[in-house]
Structure formats: structure tokens, C-alpha cells
């Protein structure tokens, strides 16, 4: 078998692919955080819990209602988005005039509540979810086997990120959104319903988290705790990349996923901490983040 630096090439590409899959989740989640932060000036601590909710809804859908993967891919993000809209209307909207830290504290409380509820209902054990038939098996690329589902996760995530970028940067709705981010009062004076846009932005941002959750369902163990550890890594990703640009979030997310995957091959002990170490280095060299600007 061919080897690179003493590592079998199969294992290397396998981890590279896994890294890309994780990186896709980082990308979609940090994109959602960035979109929400841009509009609401709130860091959504509940993002991980809502990602978990997306995955749990997928599992519950199949287990109790017989809803398959494809319908879940549509319905679960909408469900999570609606939960998000309820959160925004009932709670977050009262905090916009206060220090941004209150938004973080409130969403932290929500994360605890959501996680605790699911833990109480379904226990901490992971639930299995089988890969949809269409994506069972693997492509033979000659030098490695590429599991079809992993390829799908990466493609679907990138497509969603690209679509988000397109909507925000190239459409009229996106132009309103950017205007409202830049100067909400002036935008409102032009007759655009800014509070409605804020509500929809939050719903959309957490919907993205729900979407990532559905994608993750067949690829990982589904459990109430799956979101909280992930979200801390995503925070580090956001600090590294800065929240200034959409493409920046995507590039940083994927890049860090790959680096993490490679670390698993060459220095397994550090694979859990490598993203945090990179964050520390970035803070020393470029405190505003790779794609960020100091405000």
C-alpha cells in the first residue's frame, strides 16, 4: 500500500474526507452565527442546541411519524426556524437596546433549557440513524473509497452556503438586509419593515443550524449533547475567521475541518484542541481574525 510520511494513503484520504465533513458543519454553523450577528448583534449561544434539535427532529420524525430523510431535510429546518422565530418574537426582541452580552446570556439559558428537555425526554445515549438508500455505499476513486453520504454532506453544505451568499449579495432582498444591517433606522425610514427582516433573519440563521443537524443525523450519533461541544469549536472558528464576510466563514470552516482531520492522522492527541491552538496563534498575530475588521 502506498504511504505518505509513513501513513497509509487510504487512511490519510479517509481523514481528509472526514475533516471536510466536519468542516462543512463548521461552515454552515458559523455562517448562521455570522448572519444572525450581522443583523441582531447577538451571538446565538443556542445555535448548537438548535443544530441538535434539527438532528433530533429528524430521528423523531422517522421513529414516530415515519417521515423519511428527504422530507426531514425540508421539514426539520423549517421547524427549527419556526422555533427560532418564536424565540425572537417572545424574548430576543426586548434585548436589542441593551448591552450585547445580554443576548449571549439569554441564548445560553435557552441552550441549557433545550438541551435539558431533550435529555429528559430521550436520555443521553446516542440514537442511530441509517444512511438514506440513495447514498449507501461508496464511490471507488481508484486511490480510495469515498462514502457517498460524506460526499453528499459536503456538496449539500457548500450549495446552501453558496445560495445564502447569492441571496445576500446579489438579490434585492439581500440588498435590503445589508442596508438594515448597516443602518436600521434609515432603512426603516425608506419604508422597509426592519423588525420583520430581523425576525426572518434569526429564523433563517437557526434554520441553517437545523439543516446542518439533519445532514449530521446519519453521519454521527444523534444525542442531546451533540450540539454543545460542537458550538464551542464553532465559536473558535468564528473568532479565527471573523464574522465580516460570508465566504470568509465558509473558507475558515472548511480549512479548519481539514486541519483537524489531518491532525487526527499525524498527532491524534492534539486533534481535540488544534482549533483552539490555532485560535490562540491568530489572536497573537491578527487579533481581528483572518477575514475580520476591527470595529
Amino acid at each position: 500500500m502506498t504511504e505518505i510520511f509513513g501513513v497509509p494513503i487510504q487512511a490519510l484520504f479517509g481523514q481528509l474526507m472526514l475533516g471536510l465533513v466536519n468542516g462543512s458543519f463548521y461552515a454552515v454553523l458559523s455562517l448562521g452565527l455570522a448572519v444572525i450577528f450581522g443583523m441582531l448583534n447577538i451571538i446565538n449561544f443556542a445555535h448548537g442546541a438548535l443544530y441538535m434539535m434539527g438532528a433530533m427532529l429528524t430521528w423523531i420524525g422517522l421513529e414516530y411519524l415515519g417521515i423519511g430523510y428527504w422530507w426531514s431535510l425540508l421539514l426539520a429546518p423549517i421547524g427549527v426556524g419556526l422555533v427560532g422565530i418564536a424565540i425572537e418574537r417572545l424574548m430576543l426582541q426586548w434585548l436589542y437596546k441593551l448591552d450585547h452580552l445580554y443576548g449571549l446570556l439569554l441564548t445560553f439559558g435557552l441552550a441549557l433549557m433545550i438541551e435539558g428537555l431533550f435529555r429528559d425526554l430521550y436520555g443521553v445515549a446516542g440514537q442511530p440513524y441509517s444512511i438514506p438508500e440513495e447514498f449507501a455505499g461508496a464511490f471507488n476513486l481508484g486511490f480510495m473509497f469515498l462514502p457517498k453520504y460524506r460526499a453528499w454532506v459536503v456538496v449539500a453544505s457548500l450549495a446552501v452556503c453558496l445560495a445564502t451568499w447569492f441571496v445576500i449579495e446579489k438579490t434585492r432582498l439581500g440588498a435590503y438586509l445589508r442596508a438594515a444591517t448597516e443602518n436600521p433606522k434609515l432603512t426603516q425610514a425608506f419604508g422597509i419593515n426592519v423588525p420583520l427582516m430581523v425576525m426572518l433573519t434569526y429564523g433563517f440563521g437557526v434554520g441553517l443550524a437545523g439543516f446542518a443537524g439533519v445532514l449530521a443525523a446519519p453521519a454521527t450519533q444523534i444525542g442531546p449533547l451533540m450540539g454543545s461541544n460542537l458550538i464551542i469549536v464553532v465559536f473558535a472558528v468564528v473568532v479565527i475567521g471573523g464574522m465580516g464576510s460570508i465566504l470568509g466563514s465558509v473558507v475558515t470552516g472548511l480549512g479548519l475541518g481539514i486541519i483537524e482531520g489531518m491532525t487526527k492522522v499525524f498527532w491524534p492527541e492534539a486533534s481535540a484542541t488544534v482549533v483552539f491552538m490555532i485560535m490562540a496563534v491568530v489572536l497573537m498575530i491578527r487579533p481581528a481574525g483572518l477575514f475580520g475588521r476591527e470595529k
Partner: protein
Amino acid sequence: MSRRVSIAYLIGLGLLLLAPTFIYPILVMKVLCFALFACAFNLLLGYTGLLSFGHAVFLGSAAYVTGHALKVWELPTLLGLLAGTGAATLLGWVIGSLAIRRQGIYFAMVTLALAQMVYFFFLQASFTGGEDGLQGVPRGTLFGLDLADDINLYYLVVAIFAGSFWLIQRTINSPFGQILKAIRENEPRAISLGYDVAKYKLLAFVLSAGLAGLAGATKTLVFKFATLTDAHWHTSGEVVLMTLLGGMGTVFGPVVGATVIVALQNELADKVGSLVTVIMGAIFVICVLAFRRGIVGESLALYERMIGQKGR
């Protein structure tokens, strides 16, 4: 300290000295450890305006180092406590220097991420005992007193708490504390007045980390073990909740908050199981939405309003 605070402090101290006659001392010691932890945290959040979301790591690292020093190196108790506190102070300096490079929300995220990194280190390192934790830490003796006796230990813990609380008050009311408040209120103005804001923030962070470490070291002595829970982000969230619930930026708020939360957890643990997390989350949400000044802050505001009405 103002006169009102001094009187409350002395009354509180008197109550603490009598407490073991009617309350289980281990429970009071647990409350005191968390109250010290929350007071240290309040120094940073309430008086400097910095929200650290990784403070558990200082509690946890000091707990481990003290445990290791007492159990493996067999150091005397006092040196064990100092070793733990020193380790947390050093870690506070490292994490603080990195974190103060970003402001506001980013500061919270950076501290959380760095704390998670240290958490993973503890999870993998051999001296922490991994998932099992560090068990069977001996309490040792102090000035010839056997600390294995809960009552002897109780008075040591009260002394540590009272001393640290006094130190925090002294800090808040010193010129240094006034500068911290100036930074909290308006950082650009503090900079334009010529203060080296980064230096003051770092000093506040290190002090807070060290005192949080002292709380962790004491906690190891009380429970005779150190576990991963101490360093977990849940514990970081708990200390935020204690401070928020009691009233951030108030003198006694963190103590009240810690008492309420520890008592609640103690009461609820057997009855509702994993719903405790849901209740903690709900308290968080209610505090942020309706109760931002916390128990002490709201009570003081109510009191001032009543006095004001009488005067009119």
C-alpha cells in the same frame, strides 16, 4: 468599605461562625466555595465589565493542582492550597493576555474556547485521572489542627472566604478599582485619560482567576476530590448565573446568588433529575428578561424607591 457594607459583613461573619450548630457544615462550605468563586467572577464582570465564559477552568485547574500536590507530592495543606491558587493565577495570566486582545462578545467566545482547550487537556492528561477524577485527597493538618474534622476545616474555609471577600472589597474601593469601573463605563474615555487599559484589564483578570483558583483549591479540600465537572463549561455558566441572579456589580449579590443556586441544586437533584438543567436555563432567561439587576440589585432599588417616597 462603606459603613452599611461593613455592618452587613460583620453580621454575615457572625452568622457564619454560628452556622455549624444548625446547618450541615459541608453544605455551608460548598456554598462558601461557590460564593468566593462568584465574587471573584463578579470582580471581572460586575466591576470591569468583562464577561469571561471560561472561569470554571481556573476553579478546575486549582482543584487538580491542589489535589495532586496533597495526594502525590504529599505537601502540607497550606502549600497545597498555595500551589493550586498559584497555578490558576498563572493560567489566568496566559488566558487573560490572549483574551483581552478582543472585546465584548468576542472576549466571551475566546475565554470559552481557551477554557475548552484546557478542559480537553485535563481529559487526556494522566495526573487528573481522566473521567474518574482525582479521588481520596487527604486534607492534612494546619497549625496542629486536624482538618479531617469537618468543624476544624469549616473555620479554615470561613477564614479563607472572609479574607478573600475583604480583599475583593478593598480592591473595588481602591484607586485601582475606580479605574476598573471607569473602563467598564467607557473604555475609550479611560484610554483617552491616559490609562493603559490593557494592563488594568489583565490585572483584574489575573486577580479574578487567582481568587477563583483559591475557591477551587478550597473545594478540593472540602470534598477530598477534584473532577472534570469543575472545569466544564457548565460550571462556567453556573458562575455567570450565580452572579446574574444575585446581582452583578453588587457587593453581596454573588454570595446570595451562589447560596440560592447551590441550595436549589441540593434540593432538586434527587427530585427532578436532569430537569435541573432546564430550571437553571429558565432562571437565566427570566433574569435576563425581567430581573437584570438580580436579587440584591432589585431589592436595593426597591428600598431606595421607598426611602425616596417617604422623603417627599
